[in-house]
Structures are given as structure tokens and as C-alpha cells.
């Protein structure tokens, strides 16, 4: 009303003319608006657009990266992120170790295993026992449409059949072609790592030195719901944390192949790492068919997990202890995940309605 007096209808005007309450409220608001206009007065700015453009052009070249940052990727969280990444590699190794029939791991189902922070730290030491190189670098890209994502990944982007009514209509698509990592065990590096930590870590079994594990991940498509683009502040120190409303991911199932290392060797070796909790060891041993089971590490201090049925197959639902967010992971040809700050029942409903 203050900004646009013409917006008032004639009946509004009639009411206003006879309503002392509305008049008083309007007077207060108008007073605030005038005061703020004065308060926010700023010195004259006469920008030189041409020279400003030259300065911007001379800035370092553009490179693709995700248009938003998750709290875990903020600088203060880097050590934690590195720990988690190392744990992910270690878990791939663990998975292979338990594939005691063939030196090949290709999961068809999921199984939660409880991990503690101490477990993650212990397992992440494994990554110090060799060298991880990417024979095909992961190249995630933000794209503008589902079609662009499909062109990169080579499969149809998953489409949500059911979404809560409050869900944002803005979807950011990211896609990644297949990436291949090779982990080469290195006895020398392992000895140095053990010496540096001061821990008595187990020696690499004979013949393991130089052996390779090839881990293939992707291609994958990730869909992020929410106004992530608009809120990705240009300042990394921004106090705004952009939490997606929903994340849907689909990826080809990871594959791990092993040369030289026998699965028995790897299994014995991993179980001999000091610091692993009894629960984790027991859970790893209890996995029925390790050649086709994707281990979902559940940090038991922070999250809970339950088995659910999604699209007719077994899935693992993970929720944090505060009930603020939950996610579900299942494998049906590909690995699927639906994660969001929603109730578990909603996440499972979205997962069941997903069309791929």
C-alpha cells in the first residue's frame, strides 16, 4: 500500500477511510519505510563498467564445480571430509576382501554396518598403505537440464513420481561419467605410515606389495531440489548454509576388481587392523553374500538405520538421531539414493514413486 497506493481496490479504500486501526497501522508502516529509506541512503556510485569488465576478465579461468557447498566441504570440515573419503576407499577394499569367491565385487543389494568414529579412523589408515590414482578422473558437472545430465551419464535421469507439496520446483542437475580409481598396495608406504602414527599396524601380507584394486564408480546423475543456485553465496565464509530440500541420486553400481591379492589375505588383514569395534567386525563377518552386497556404513553415534522395502527390493533407510533428515539407499540394477531433511516415511514414499 505504501509502495503502490494504486494497488488498493475501491472497497479497500472505503474500509480504510473509516477504519482508525488501519490508518494508525498504515501511519506506523509509512513512518518506518520513510525512516529506512533515509537510513539506507548511500554515497553516489558511478561505476566504470568497461574497466570493471577488464578486471574481471583478467581473473583466473573458469572451471566447473558444484554450484553449492555442503557444510562438510567447508574448510573447517576438510579433515573430516578427507577422513570420510579415505573411509570410502577403505570400505571398497573391505567389500572386496569379503568377496571370498571371486576377486570381483558388484553389489546387487545393500546392508548396513555400524561404524564408530574410531572405526573410520582405523579404516582410513588403510589408504596410507598404498597409492590411489585415478585412471579416469571423476568429472562431475553441473548441467542445466535432465537431458544434458542424461547425455553425460548415458542413462535416463530418475524422475520423482511423488513429491511433498511444499517441495521446490527448482532442480539442479549434476552428472558424472564413469570414473576409475586404482589403489596400489605399497609396503614401503605402509611402513612409513605406521611409523608416523606410532601405532603397531599389521604388516602387509606377502605378495600384497604392488597388488592393485581397481574401483569403478559411476556414471551417475544427481538431482538437487531447492534454490541452490540462488543461494550459493559467492563468499565461502557465508553464514548461509544452503541445505537442499531433497537429493535424488542414481549411479551404476560400483565395481571392484583385484589382482594378485587373495580375498582371504585381504579379509584377514582388515580384521587385524587395531581399533575396529567388535560390532563392525561381527557385522562384516555376518554379511551373507559379500560379492554382491554394498556395505552402507552407518555412524552409530549420529544415525540409525532400518531395513525397508523400496520398489520391491531391500533398501537401507538411514536417519539422524534428531529426526531432522533421512535417506534411503537401494539397488535395482543401479544404486539409487533419496536423501533430504524430511521424515523417513516421506523419503521412502518419494523413493517408491521414483521412475528411472
Amino acid at each position, binding site marked *: *500500500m*505504501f*509502495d503502490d497506493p494504486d494497488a488498493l481496490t475501491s472497497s479497500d479504500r472505503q474500509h480504510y477511510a473509516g477504519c482508525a486501526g488501519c490508518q494508525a497501522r498504515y501511519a506506523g*508502516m509509512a513512518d*518506518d*519505510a520513510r*525512516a*529506512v*529509506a533515509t*537510513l*539506507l541512503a*548511500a*554515497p*553516489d*556510485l*558511478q*561505476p566504470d*563498467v568497461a574497466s*570493471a*569488465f577488464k*578486471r*574481471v576478465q583478467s*581473473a583466473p579461468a*573458469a*572451471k566447473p*564445480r558444484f*554450484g553449492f557447498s555442503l557444510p562438510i566441504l567447508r574448510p573447517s570440515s576438510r579433515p573430516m571430509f578427507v577422513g570420510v573419503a579415505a573411509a570410502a576407499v577403505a570400505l571398497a577394499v573391505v567389500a572386496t576382501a569379503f568377496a571370498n569367491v571371486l576377486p570381483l565385487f558388484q553389489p546387487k543389494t545393500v546392508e548396513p554396518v555400524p561404524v564408530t568414529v574410531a572405526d573410520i579412523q582405523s579404516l582410513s589408515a588403510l589408504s596410507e598403505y598404498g597409492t590411489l590414482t585415478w585412471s579416469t578422473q571423476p568429472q562431475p558437472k*553441473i548441467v*542445466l537440464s535432465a537431458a544434458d545430465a542424461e547425455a553425460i551419464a548415458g542413462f535416463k535421469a530418475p524422475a520423482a513420481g511423488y513429491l511433498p507439496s511444499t517441495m*521446490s520446483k*527448482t532442480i539442479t542437475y549434476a552428472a558424472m561419467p564413469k570414473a576409475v580409481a586404482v589403489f596400489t598396495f605399497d609396503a614401503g608406504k605402509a611402513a612409513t605410515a605406521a611409523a608416523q602414527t606410532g601405532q603397531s599396524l599389521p604388516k602387509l601380507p606377502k605378495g600384497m606389495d604392488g597388488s592393485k584394486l581397481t574401483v569403478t564408480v559411476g556414471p551417475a546423475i544427481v538431482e538437487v531440489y531447492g*534454490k541452490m*543456485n*540462488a*543461494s*550459493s*553465496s*559467492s*563468499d565461502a*565464509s*557465508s*553464514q*548461509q548454509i544452503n541445505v537442499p530440500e531433497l537429493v535424488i541420486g542414481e549411479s551404476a553400481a560400483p565395481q571392484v576388481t583385484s589382482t594378485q591379492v587373495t580375498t582371504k589375505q585381504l579379509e584377514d588383514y582388515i580384521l587385524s587392523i587395531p581399533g575396529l569395534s567388535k560390532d563392525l567386525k561381527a557385522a562384516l563377518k555376518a554379511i551373507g553374500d559379500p560379492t554382491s552386497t554394498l556395505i552402507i556404513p552407518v555412524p552409530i553415534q549420529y544415525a540409525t538405520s532400518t531395513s525397508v522395502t523400496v520398489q520391491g527390493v531391500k533398501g537401507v533407510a538411514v536417519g539422524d538421531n534428531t529426526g531432522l533428515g533421512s535417506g534411503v539407499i537401494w539397488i535395482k540394477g543401479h544404486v539409487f539414493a533419496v536423501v533430504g531433511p524430511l521424515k523417513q516415511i516421506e523419503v521412502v514414499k518419494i523413493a517408491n514413486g521414483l521412475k528411472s
Partner: protein
Amino acid sequence: MAANLEAVPEGRTRLVKSREEAFEALFKSEYARVAGIANRVLADPHEAEDVAQEVFINFHRLHSASAPFAPAWLHRAAAHTALNRVRGRRRREKRELAQAPEEASRTVDPQQMLEVGEDRRVVRAALARLAPKPAAVLVLRASGLSYAEVAQALGVGTGQIGTLLRRAEAALRKEVTRGSSI
């Protein structure tokens, strides 16, 4: 065959060129406004231009200039980046206040300049103490954006802007009064 081999680099060059052209067009159409938003927060034209350039560089790294959300992204990023600078200013403020009498002595009316500078400092500090959304609503609207543009930048419905704005104005006045009495 040779023609095919040559076609790829040419196509890429054209693509890169068109991307650069799109960015230049976006820059020219939005720079003054983005710098204006930052200036509204910072009350400092030089620093405002720094912020505007930082915002454009970040945008160029992350997105295509032809993205439909480009202006809204830039407006929001300008407001938040400038507000973050005000929040991180405290240490520098002490230094500036120490220099103020020296700078003021070079002006025509030192007393008036000092008062204007102090008023602006109090207002900007109050603005930075507001929650991010009300602060951004005030800054964007005061920078001349329409209700629809403010709504797009903040990802809210246009119908909510009037209410958000009125509440934010009242909140800022209260904060300024509080800041002045501290």
C-alpha cells in the same frame, strides 16, 4: 575427413566465444545494479565495486551467463557478500575510527562528515545484525529492485515481499535505536 577434424575446434571456439559474449552482455546489463546493491550495504563505492567484481567472477566460475536465474543469483549474492563484509568489518572499523579525525580534517565540514560517517556505521552494523533474509529484502528493495525481482532473488513468492519488507523495516529501526543506545 579433414573437414570433420577442423569442424570440432571451430565449433568449440564458437561455443567459447558465444559463452564469453553472453557473459559480457550479462556483465554490462547487470554490473551497475550489482555494484549498487553492494554500495547500499557498504556505503563505500570502492568496496562495493570490489564486491560486484567478486560476485561476477564467482558467477562465471559456476554458471552459464545464459542461465535464466543469472540476474537473481547476482542480486542475492551481491547482498549477501556485502553483508558478510560488514559482519567481518569489526576489526577494521576500529582502525577507521582512529583515522576518522585525520580524514575529517581535510573536508569542508569535519563535524558533519564525522556525523554522517558514524550514522552510516551504526546503520550498517544494525543491518548486519538482522537475519539474512530481512536484511537482503531491505537492501534489494532500497536498490531499486521491483517486488518481483526481490522475490526471484530470494526464492520467495512475490506476495510475501510486502509483509517481509514491512517487518524488516520495523526490525531495522529497532536495531538502529538499540545500536545507537549501546
